[in-house]
């Protein structure tokens, strides 16, 4: 009885965990690409640094927690 309960509980947990992942589509990442979403204690400073890097590397985007929405790497 106890074993069945544990298995059922494990099934329930696995079910919840596996369905709790929501896919944020690439075109829905507008808010995630905002500088405030940068995972850093000083996002403004980090934003300025990224702007500097972008200027030097000739790149753009790839900031924020979802890499600016571009799924290109």
């Amino acid at each position, binding site marked *: 009885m106890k074993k069945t309960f544990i298995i059922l509980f494990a099934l329930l947990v696995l079910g919840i965990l596996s369905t709790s*992942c929501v896919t944020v589509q*690439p075109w829905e990442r507008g808010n995630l690409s905002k500088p405030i979403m940068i995972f850093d204690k000083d996002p403004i400073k980090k934003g300025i640094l990224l702007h500097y890097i972008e200027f030097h590397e000739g790149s753009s*985007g*790839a900031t924020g927690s979802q890499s600016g929405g571009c799924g290109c790497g």
Partner: protein
Amino acid sequence: MKMLYFSILFSIVFQLSNFNAYSQEEGTKAPEIILRTQSGADFSLSSLSGKVVIVDFWASWCGPCRLGMPFLQQLYEEYKAKGLEIVGINLDTKQENIEKFINKLSKKPSFTILWDSKGGTPNTYKVAGMPTTLFIDKKGVIRYRHIGFKEEDKETYRKLIEQLLGEQ
């Protein structure tokens, strides 16, 4: 033990049910796009039949999209007379963001800009990254799909356009 295997299988099935498969639709007929232009006119992709069409899914918050926009305008100016059409589908949630971005550009895009805030067309086209650029041939077949934009892509775009324009 059987129950454990069953639990694992159950978990995998659930995971797979959430997995969004990004199919590459190169070689297939481009699905119809019916939207409104910024000026309020009706637009349908089928009306461009017989032309080489670039469909670009973009948003004002996306860095590579912003980077690619002036180049698309350049391509449009170069190849429009030869039969190229460009359709930019903006996926911003607020229309004012499109205007803000376009007003910042030194040259405003003269090609068709459509707005799809509900995400219907990117869902149909299985957009997997921003920007997604599709090259559609004169027969309406998707020939090439590109995700992202960087300087090195410019040459690839030109070669592809010339190849598609040269086809019957």
